[in-house]
């Protein structure tokens, strides 16, 4: 028996060539991707040691603050689990996040928006999941912001997620949105995903009870990475 990654269902992923998102026009490849049987290359992958994670790496309200000044905005909790397509929790998954500040401004030379940076907020964090696949970040509610697309449009509030599971076939880069944001429906990046249920799976849900207990609005966002199946050797002999 050998392992193989479950084949990707492209209906639940964005279309590469999606002209409503203008930047895709000159960057999306036109040819069909080549499918092939998984090899050890895709079934292995980097696994990161928990030692790389510093104490404040998952607290974006403190990891760039000067003199303990808390960044401006609503402090929130974002948490959830990482599991595979068979609901097995994934321990040791590395999550990296990045986001705009409360004013919708990124700490980045390419962000041309006329909004203020916050000297106490960089907008990056990382975490390695615990045995139940659990992760948690404390951060500031990111603001929406205008960007040039078909004229000026607005990005819904979002946090970027980069995830490493157990193998390179599980590698995922995505964005998390916030329940109730009226800008989600018109976002071309969300709409590039053909399947509506898949679109909704990117929207975090407000956890009312935890928000009350911890006095911080708490959003739950669960992530599902690819699973692997056991298959027979393709070249097995009769009777073996």
């Amino acid at each position, binding site marked *: 028996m*050998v392992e193989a990654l479950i084949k*990707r269902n492209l209906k*639940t*992923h*964005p*279309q*590469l060539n*999606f002209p409503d*998102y203008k*930047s*895709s026009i*000159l*960057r999306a*490849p036109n*040819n069909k*991707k*080549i*499918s*092939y*049987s998984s*090899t*050890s*290359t*895709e079934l292995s992958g*980097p696994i*990161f040691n928990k030692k*790389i994670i*510093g104490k*404040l*790496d998952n607290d974006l309200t403190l*990891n*760039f603050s000067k003199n303990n000044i808390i960044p401006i905005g609503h402090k929130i909790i974002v948490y959830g689990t990482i599991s595979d*397509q*068979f*609901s097995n929790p994934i321990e040791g998954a590395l999550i990296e996040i*990045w*986001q705009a500040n409360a004013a919708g401004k990124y*700490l*980045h030379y*390419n962000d041309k928006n006329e909004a203020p940076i916050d000297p106490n907020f*960089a907008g*990056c964090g990382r975490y390695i999941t615990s045995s139940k696949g659990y992760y948690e970040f404390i951060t500031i509610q990111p603001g929406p912001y205008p960007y040039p697309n078909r004229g000026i449009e607005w990005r819904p509030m979002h946090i*970027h997620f*980069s995830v490493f599971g157990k193998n*390179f076939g599980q590698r995922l*880069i*995505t964005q998390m949105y916030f329940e109730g944001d009226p800008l989600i429906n018109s976002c071309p*990046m969300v709409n*590039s995903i053909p*399947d509506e*249920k*898949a679109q909704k799976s990117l929207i975090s849900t407000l956890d009312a009870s935890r928000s009350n207990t911890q006095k911080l609005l708490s959003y739950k966002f669960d*992530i*599902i*990475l*690819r*699973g692997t199946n*056991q298959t027979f*050797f*393709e070249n097995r002999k009769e009777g073996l």
Partner: protein
Amino acid sequence: MSDIKTVLDETPFQTAGPFLHIGCLPNAINIEGIFDTDLGVKPFANKDYGKFITITGSVFDGDGKALDDIMLESWQSDENGVYSPECGFARFVPDTLTKKFNLYTLKPGFINDIDGKAQSPHILLSISSRGLNMTLNTRIYFEGDDLTSDPLLSTVRNSRNNVSSLVAKKIDEDIFLFDIFLQGDKETIFLDI
């Protein structure tokens, strides 16, 4: 039995956007003091022996423009064709002036897979950026290696595609050129991994 377990949908991709450095390479854009070092600066940090090579190239869009607001990630075996979880991963970006990336790494070896098939030396390469709704994956093979019986290259040939876009050209002793074309006549072969 695992056969009858419900198979959930994978979480969808979204573009990494133009500001990916903040989360993935903060030190590279002078956001310092949060992470000690950026991830994947050296693929084989603890090794100073073996044959090291440089792979250089650019990523071109449909207008033939070399891009710099992209992130590349590579994953490979060591010189003996062995994968180990703690090394072989690199993350890098093109230089903002020359638009060229440079990957300094061990030349990977031939890989004997569990199903008895041998893979030619290669590096799995992924590309993420603004305008790419999903991360793209391709492979770097090397000019001069025996590429005749590699299973993936056979699949590519059987689909009547030319494998040349997957083969890095040797341009000097220990230096290989691997340009990536997102679109057009020379469009690189991308993989549904």
